């Protein structure tokens, strides 16, 4: 048995180690309180002292040794980093643009890589659309400000339609090609950025129950090591499998909390953005009903950022004629463009190029409830890029 590295185990107590509870009890009863006490022992000695077999003793020492190995957490725990270093690291990781400047500025440049984000909203508000859009956007070449990564889509509701991905991918390729113009490296990048390429870099897993979802989540670390270019994992939705098949809600909460912790760990260790979608439910409180995200209070702490999508005066009733709708949208667009801050040049270019192709525009109110980097606030924005692919180009 090799020696346990001293500086890492000095202060660790036996109770906090990853040994089985019964073994811990035996060790403590025999007087071993800190891991350091066990450092110099051989299996034979340990077996005599504690009253376990030779093999068990060897196993205990081996477990303590694995415990002491440095965890791959990007060196956060091993030596500690300064706030400046952390900031630089976060900036270097970049973020996934959503093609919607208001949402991007609300999120501080896009969906952050290395963090988890939860998207909640009532059915039909556009959660799946946002996820598909992100799964395509993460693949935008570097010279356009993208990440050139791959994406993994875990579909639990059966609502993933390849047909829609093709639409969104085609729109993304079209708009990037408008930006490519004369710049040589962009033209070159466009040759590789095709609809086929986008589809082949989008991995898909289908899980129809929570056991399958949990099983896949345990296999994610090996999947991510095999596919190191994956920068985004989408789980659409986390609520669907966990809102059925459960009689015992405390069991559900335990599983969900463990899953949330596991996903947060994956996001930091493998440098991926994890986007989870969640359904809404009605909560009655003091005789007033309110729509809140599903899966209970404790799940609210699961993701680093939580985005809730609502409708705001979305569509007018179906009696309004088409021309009126167009005029109204025109007005809204003018208002918005006067007041909106312009965060980033390439994004603005993209935004403008979307305008002529616009058919179906919804107004969402995006309330960004974020724990990490942004203040709370409401933002108005269009999801035109999401739908622009449906537009007949004039």
């Amino acid at each position: 048995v090799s020696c346990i590295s001293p500086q890492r185990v000095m202060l660790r107590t036996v109770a906090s180690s990853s040994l089985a509870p019964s073994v811990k009890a035996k060790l403590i009863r025999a007087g071993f309180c800190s891991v350091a006490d066990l450092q110099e022992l051989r299996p034979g000695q340990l077996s005599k002292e504690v009253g376990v077999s030779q093999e068990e003793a060897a196993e205990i020492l081996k477990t303590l040794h694995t415990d002491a190995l440095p965890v791959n957490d990007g060196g956060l725990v091993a030596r500690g980093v300064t706030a400046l270093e952390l900031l630089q690291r976060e900036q270097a990781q970049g973020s996934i643009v959503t093609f919607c400047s208001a949402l991007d500025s609300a999120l501080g440049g896009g969906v952050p890589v290395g963090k988890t984000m939860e998207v909640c909203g009532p059915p039909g508000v556009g959660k799946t659309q946002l996820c598909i859009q992100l799964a395509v956007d993460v693949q935008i070449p570097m010279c356009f400000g993208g990440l050139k990564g791959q994406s993994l889509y875990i579909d639990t509701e059966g609502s993933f339609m390849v047909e829609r991905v093709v639409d969104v991918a085609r729109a993304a390729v079209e708009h990037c090609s408008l930006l490519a113009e004369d710049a040589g490296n962009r033209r070159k990048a466009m040759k590789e950025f095709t609809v086929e390429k986008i589809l082949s870099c989008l991995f898909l897993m289908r899980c129809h129950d929570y056991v399958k979802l949990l099983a896949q989540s345990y296999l994610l670390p090996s999947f991510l090591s095999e596919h190191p270019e994956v920068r985004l994992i989408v789980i659409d939705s986390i609520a669907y499998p966990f809102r059925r098949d459960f009689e015992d809600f405390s069991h559900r909460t335990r599983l969900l909390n463990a899953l949330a912790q596991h996903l947060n760990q994956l996001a930091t260790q493998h440098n991926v953005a994890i986007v989870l979608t969640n359904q809404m439910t009605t909560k009655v409180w003091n005789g007033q009903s309110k729509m809140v995200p599903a899966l209970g209070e404790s799940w609210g702490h699961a993701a680093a950022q939580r985005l809730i999508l609502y409708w705001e005066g979305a569509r007018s009733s179906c009696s309004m004629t088409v021309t009126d709708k167009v005029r109204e949208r025109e007005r809204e667009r003018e208002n918005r463009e006067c007041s909106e801050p312009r965060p980033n040049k390439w994004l603005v270019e993209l935004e403008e190029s979307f305008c002529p192709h616009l058919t179906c525009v919804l107004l969402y109110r995006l309330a960004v409830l974020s724990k990490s980097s942004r203040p709370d606030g409401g933002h108005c924005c269009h999801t035109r890029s999401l739908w622009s692919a449906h537009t007949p180009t004039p």
Partner: protein
Amino acid sequence: MNWERLNLSPRITAALQKGNLNSAKELLGLSVLELQALTHLSTSDVQQLRRAAARLYCGAAPVRTALDVRNSEPGEKLSLACPLLDALLHGGLPLCGITELSGESGAGKTQLGLQLCLSVQYPAEWGGLGSGAVYICTEDAFPIKRLRQLITQQPRLRPDIPQALVHSIRFSDNIYIEHTADLGALQSCIAQRVPVLLSRGLVRLVVIDSIAALFRSEFQADESMERARHLLALSGTLHHLSHSHKVPVFCINQVTDVIDSPNPGRCEFGLVESRILPALGLAWANQVMVRLMLWRLEGTVSDGDQSCAPRRLEVVFAPHLPQASCLCGVWLEGVRGIPDVVREDPGASTLTEALCRPVERDPEQKDGSMVS
């Protein structure tokens, strides 16, 4: 369950047997602490065990890409038997998932349901799935007279299909009709009888007319938790049927009146100024993949010697469709879309306006609607 297959150390296998864990599914549903309590293994052992069980449970199939999926599942859809309606839905109903159609009574929901039962029987090249349909009635008796009428009018509805083919299909032999008067009967029907029909290949469409009727009659206003639980169970079964057999599930739903002012607890699906919303609330809406609404409009449209009230079929939400709508009418031969030519004719602007406005009716006359 033979744990030896996992290639784990004998120590872990023995612990599993002692802990009385019999399947990978059971093991994966437990948290680390629960597993430790059962097996007395260390955390790292438990994690290793869990990974092995996960690999066993998920199988060895490599992860597919969207490109593989596109090449292996060529976007099959079930046609609505009208090119205009098919264009609205990008080809028809998707084969996986629940499609819901809601609307007031008299809007034409059942008509569309019947039409799908016939359309599904054509071979794939004519937009069908080459198999029969099961039609589950929970409200009225099955409209058998109308079905016979539709069958005799098929050549008129589908002039593009060779007449010999239309006449060769024995439509009424391939429609299985179930009447379920209560929730228990509906559950046992979709959990037992429908899977038999599906696995024998006799049926590739499930229509439920309507999903709301039983839930509205069997539960009191204060039993919403119980109602939601039953809804989830039912939709879970339907979801499973649809995905395991690749069959569209078409659910007809009623509507509910909006009587109060805007309410933060009510989900409106973007239908902000609408007087009516689909029934059964958020719990059901979360389970629906494609939501369609059918509105009956004012005025009349005529086609040859026939005339009928115009309808508007609207996509409320769907993962692959933009929000859009299309005018249609219910004719002798079935539901057909009305092309948008009226709008280009300057003299017909009033008609266009009339076509775009839903009928204003006294709410008390409405049947099948309930105060939300």
